[in-house]
């Protein structure tokens, strides 16, 4: 096994995808000369030239719409939006154009674009540079939403996202960029729509995605000392999410906790809980419990932000609640 940082794995996936397919271009604000705000695209301009590594003005609405038009005209654009908070400015292109083109044009065309963007807090970036808005995109038929938790799945999922014929919102966590992890010797795409069990267990299923998978793992370590065994599932893809994998685990454990950094209300956890309360009702031995952020904007203060974001302690508490051991 080799070691790679999360950011470097994304960078490698971009380079390998561009190498493999000449129609892949990358575009975004300060991604070429400057190498991107988080340095993810550094070096790609030298390697692939300004025709395929395109610096754009600060025009999120236009560049997202351009990615749609370019994708409908034979390219596979990978667009970087510097912070997920800025995708608000690209919503028409994503929601009304990219998501619907295939459907509303009678399947004449697909929109093979990827919108890469970092979400998440933990760096005191404040209310407009920290949000987790993935549930918005997951709510729109026609979009796929991916959220990697590690260098290995960041690489594999991005390769799959770029190869995918449909528009994919690829949500990275800015707090993970510098984190090292093991990656396979031979890097390959990881299919979209498939969850992975990162820790097998018997008593409670914990579903997570992105950076909070690590928190779920910490909680599992902690509870193992109390002989409570967690099965941790990394969703990897949020839309379409792997319902079968979650259901199979629930059938085994009978208890379910869903963890995400996004606010709890109307979120990904709500969807998973609702589906499992429906199709998994017979397996449930206790309440489904969500762990997410409270219903407030992300605060700037490091102290406040620490209280705001999910923690292993909150996952532990949620597991106890799910087991009726509060």
């Amino acid at each position, binding site marked *: 096994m080799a070691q790679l940082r999360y950011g470097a794995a994304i960078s490698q996936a971009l380079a390998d995808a561009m190498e493999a397919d000449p129609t892949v271009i990358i575009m975004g604000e300060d991604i070429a000369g400057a190498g991107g705000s988080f340095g993810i695209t550094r070096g790609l301009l030298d390697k692939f030239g300004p025709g395929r590594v395109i610096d754009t003005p600060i025009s999120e609405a236009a560049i997202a719409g351009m990615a749609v038009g370019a994708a409908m005209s034979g390219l596979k654009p990978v667009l970087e939006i510097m912070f997920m908070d800025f995708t608000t400015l690209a919503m028409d292109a994503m929601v009304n154009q990219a998501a619907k083109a*295939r459907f509303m044009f009678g399947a004449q065309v697909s929109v093979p674009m990827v919108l890469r963007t970092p979400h998440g807090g933990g760096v005191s970036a404040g209310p407009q540079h920290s949000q987790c808005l993935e549930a918005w995109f997951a709510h729109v038929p026609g979009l796929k939403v991916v959220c990697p938790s590690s260098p290995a799945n960041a690489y594999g999922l991005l390769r799959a996202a770029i190869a995918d014929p449909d528009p994919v919102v690829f949500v990275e966590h800015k707090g993970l960029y510098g984190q090292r992890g093991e990656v396979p010797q031979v890097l390959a795409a990881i299919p979209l729509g498939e969850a992975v069990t990162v820790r097998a267990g018997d008593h409670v299923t914990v579903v997570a995605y992105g950076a909070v998978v690590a928190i779920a793992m910490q909680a599992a370590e902690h509870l193992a000392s109390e002989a409570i065994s967690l099965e941790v599932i990394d969703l990897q893809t949020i839309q379409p999410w792997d319902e079968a994998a979650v259901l199979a685990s629930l059938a085994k454990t009978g208890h379910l906790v869903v963890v995400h950094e996004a606010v709890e209300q109307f979120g990904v956890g709500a969807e998973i809980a609702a589906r499992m309360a429906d199709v998994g009702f017979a397996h449930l031995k206790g309440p489904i419990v969500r762990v997410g952020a409270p219903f407030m904007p992300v605060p700037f203060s490091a102290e406040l932000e620490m209280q705001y974001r999910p923690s292993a302690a909150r996952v532990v508490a949620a597991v106890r609640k799910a087991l009726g051991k509060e």
Partner: protein
Amino acid sequence: MPITGTSENEGAALLRHYEQLLVIRRCEERLQRLFAEGEVPGFIHLGIGQEAISVGVMSALQPADTLASTHRGHGHALAKGMPLEGFFAELLARDTGVCRGRGGSMHVADMSIGMLGANGIVGAGLSIATGSALAHKLKGNGQIAVSFFGDGALAEGLLHECGNIASLMKLPLLLVCEANGWSEFSPASSQIAFNLAKWSAAYGIIYRKVDGNDVVAVAEAAAALTEAIRSGGGPALLTCTTHRWRGHFEGDAQKYRNADEPEPRDPTVVAEEHLAAAGVGAQRLAQIAARVESEIEDAITKARAAPPARFDAALADVYTSASSGEAL
């Protein structure tokens, strides 16, 4: 038939333009009736009176050039070459429609002819065409992209963003403003504080303004601008002044309109004047009109006989790949 006073090619082109003008006009007149009779559902926005812009601009395009249209997009689709039967079948919500009955009037599209779709969002086509122009430039295929838009879209931020980017990147993009004087229900003069000539100059974009009711004038301007664009001159903007004969949408009571609006010039009559000057007789025009009407009636008959749009097929087409959501 030899045409005096002009070259044979020009005469033939003029006749083709005339036929296209009539196709669009008669299609929309039929839609007007079909809508009033309740056969066409939803919202339709007619471009009656604006046909010369579609026909003139499209005469300068090549088959592989692309265009992004607006909510008032029937003329763009038909002039680029959308088949009549697929067009009417779409408006009548049939499975044989160009979009299989999922888009309707506001989303008619035909990728096989580079028609990237009418659009329900004002100004959205600007960015789609700009992106398509980027693809053409990167592929070095010599094609251009066209964005049609109306006065209302001048108030959208995308005009600024796309004008800036297209100019910076010297993209092969033709911007066509169909200036009918209206921004939905409001006079454009009450909504727009700038003029496009000065705007274009500020952005370094080539600019022309023509009488949008004269297909010859539009075609000449479009030919000159597309040639400049294809030779690497970067984006250009063509303003075509015209008149919206109908309401913003069919059913619009238009209480906001004044009775003293000037009588619009009819693009089909202007074309007939050109043809008369070129020596084309009324009989020839009547033959064309009869053929156009017959083709339209034939298309409507076939569309009516076609099966309705299918729910299962629609559900299966939300995503392309099999690994997707409910389509599984």
